[in-house]
């Protein structure tokens, strides 16, 4: 089994919080985020990492691939986001604050985006990566990241504007 060097493991340990956040961004569920993070770490440990790889970018890439594998396996996406789901017996929608409705709307609109747009937008707009970093992680040119994010934002803005007009 390939093994990681001490510095690679230390770098991954440093990055675990950010990875966990990314996992939540992708799955929208605390439990699923834990599972995805664990799968990511296990895959990195199992397959190892090239000596010249950037550990954090490598881990995000593995995480992204693990999530896509999971989506393909399930053929359904997770309900999302968890923190605005209404539990049984929750107050009716009329009682939910406008802000929460808005956040919920953007979450649902995000879920409807093509996977590649959602990944690019999550990495940049939510996780704060640069276009170059996102391009490295997603293994596409920087120009592709730029256009995917612009299309995603346009789609989300249009969807939310429509929902506000309703």
């Amino acid at each position, binding site marked *: 089994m390939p*093994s*990681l*060097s*001490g510095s690679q*493991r*230390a770098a*991954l*340990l*440093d990055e*675990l*919080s*950010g990875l*966990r*956040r990314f996992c*939540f*961004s992708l799955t*929208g569920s*605390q439990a699923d*985020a*834990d599972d995805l*993070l*664990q799968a990511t*770490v*296990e895959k990195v*440990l199992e397959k190892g990492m090239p000596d010249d790889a950037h550990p954090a970018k490598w881990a995000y890439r593995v995480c992204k691939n693990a999530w896509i594998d999971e989506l393909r396996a399930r053929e359904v996406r997770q309900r999302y*986001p968890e*923190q*605005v789901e209404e539990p049984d017996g929750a107050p009716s929608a009329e009682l939910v604050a406008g802000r929460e409705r*808005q*956040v*919920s*709307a*953007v*979450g649902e609109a*995000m879920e409807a985006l093509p996977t590649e747009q959602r990944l690019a*937008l*999550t990495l*940049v*707009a*939510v996780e704060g990566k*640069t*276009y170059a970093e996102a391009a490295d992680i997603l293994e596409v040119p920087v120009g592709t990241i*730029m*256009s995917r*994010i*612009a*299309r995603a*934002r*346009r789609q*989300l*803005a249009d969807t*939310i*504007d429509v929902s506000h007009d309703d």
Partner: protein
Amino acid sequence: MTEHDFELLSQYLDGELGDAEAAALEQRLANEPGLRSTLDSMRRVDDDLRAALHPPGCDRVPRHVAALLEEAGAKSNVVPFPSRRGRAGVGLAVAASLLAAVGLWLAPQWQVAERGAHPADAANDLVAQALENTPSSADEWTPLDDGGQLRAVLSFAGASGQWCREYQLGRGTEQWRGVACRSRDSGAWHTQVLVEEHSAAAATGADYQPAGAGDLDTISNYIGEHATDIPLSASEESELIANDWQ
């Protein structure tokens, strides 16, 4: 609004435009209410996204996941101790026993440890020195003057505000894994839990028996219950060591 305009606004939001392009866009924003309104709308989308996808606690790393990486480091370490069970449960059976050494003091060098009853206690001044000064490592064991070896595994902030370290201690064919915390007042390292990882008899003898699930997991459980955050990074730990853990 053209596709190019959306791309410009998006790049602007992400700080990816050059100075000249940004200035030109800002000039247009000042004169084009429609463009400005679209930018505001895109900003709101970003704010909502972050609110939806970054709730409190979303970056909390489960202890068992961090342990996968830490344990991988322990497993890759080749020292004269023939077997070691992974905390994640790789099915490698060794006889491990919880020594229940809670309360064992690892005295700093100005204290003399003559208790002698337990191997981990016999040189506790050396252990304390090693814990005080040795960075955590996946690969390197620090030789102790009495012939033993210590490897600091990780450092973390304990619930009571003191710094704690997980470590492995080897002496002869025996090896232990423990957690010690540093008193904020005296600077003494105090062992919180200590587990025997391996003994020669366990590795070779007829008494070979599966380790109970609770043995080494005791370490994980202790850290999981008492750590207030994920383990310190190498740089954070190095800074603490340089500042005498203050």
